[in-house]
């Protein structure tokens, strides 16, 4: 089944909240090799003006992808996950993700375009803590066409 082009413009309901923990921030920072103590030392983070330890710039993917799954696994969307390749990724940070944040993601399917047998899909996830916007994640996925 091809990707359903009518999904362009669709907005999904907000995700369940994701609680950002100091432990997950530390684990993620170690995994990408970010040695800044602002990820692990609350006193250092607070001395720099943050409420608590902050996440590395790409940590947001972990929360945004939870929202993207709602679309990718929507049976009506027609996305074959085994053919999905990540094409592009952009984060716009309004402030760093911080331990203690309860983050809700709201996913919009910005565009669905057929190109050379493949389908390119741009999704946008707005991550917010209550009414405060924290990060915008823009993701382009490519669904490879059949051989």
């Amino acid at each position, binding site marked *: 089944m091809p990707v359903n082009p009518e999904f362009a413009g669709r907005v999904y309901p907000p995700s369940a909240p994701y609680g950002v923990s100091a432990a997950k921030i530390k684990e993620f920072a170690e995994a*990408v090799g970010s040695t*800044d103590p602002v990820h692990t030392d609350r006193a250092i983070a607070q001395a720099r*003006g943050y409420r608590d330890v902050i996440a590395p710039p790409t940590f947001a*993917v972990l929360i945004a992808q939870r929202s993207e799954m709602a679309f990718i696994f929507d049976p009506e969307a027609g996305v074959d996950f085994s053919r999905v390749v990540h094409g592009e990724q952009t*984060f716009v940070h309004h402030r760093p993700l911080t331990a203690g944040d309860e983050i809700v993601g709201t996913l919009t399917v910005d565009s669905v375009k057929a190109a050379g047998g493949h389908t390119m899909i741009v999704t946008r996830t707005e991550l917010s803590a209550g009414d405060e916007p924290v990060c915008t994640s*823009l993701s382009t996925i490519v669904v490879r066409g059949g051989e």
Partner: protein
Amino acid sequence: MSEVSTRRAFSGVSVGETLPSKTVHIDRARLVQYAGASLDRNPIHWDERFAVKVGLPNVIAHGMFTMGAAVTIVTEWAGDAGAVVRYGTRFTKPVVVPYETGADVEFSATVTALNEDSRQATVEITALCGADKVLGRATALVQLG
């Protein structure tokens, strides 16, 4: 509370400045570590049999791992991991990670633009695995002090 800025001063930065580069060795253990940390457990990133079965040459690194490792040269230069206000890239080539040798990715970066009003620097990052550019148009906007 008195805040201590650790951020690099905008006044000392110039267009064309190169950031300290870094080479990151990627092996299977590193990818399993990232899979757990990021919750991206797609087996193409750690299971060679599965990767080959779906048409890949071997296990490949998560594009998001490479993106996350690349920006560490920017945050280390900026003096604060919270300094990156925008960061984007294209994933142009996969990083193939053989069991025996792993893979080395070399990250380098250059300041390409400065905004006096916002005290922000645009930094373009290059990620090379052998001769392959594995990230395309990897660009970070950095809030300096």
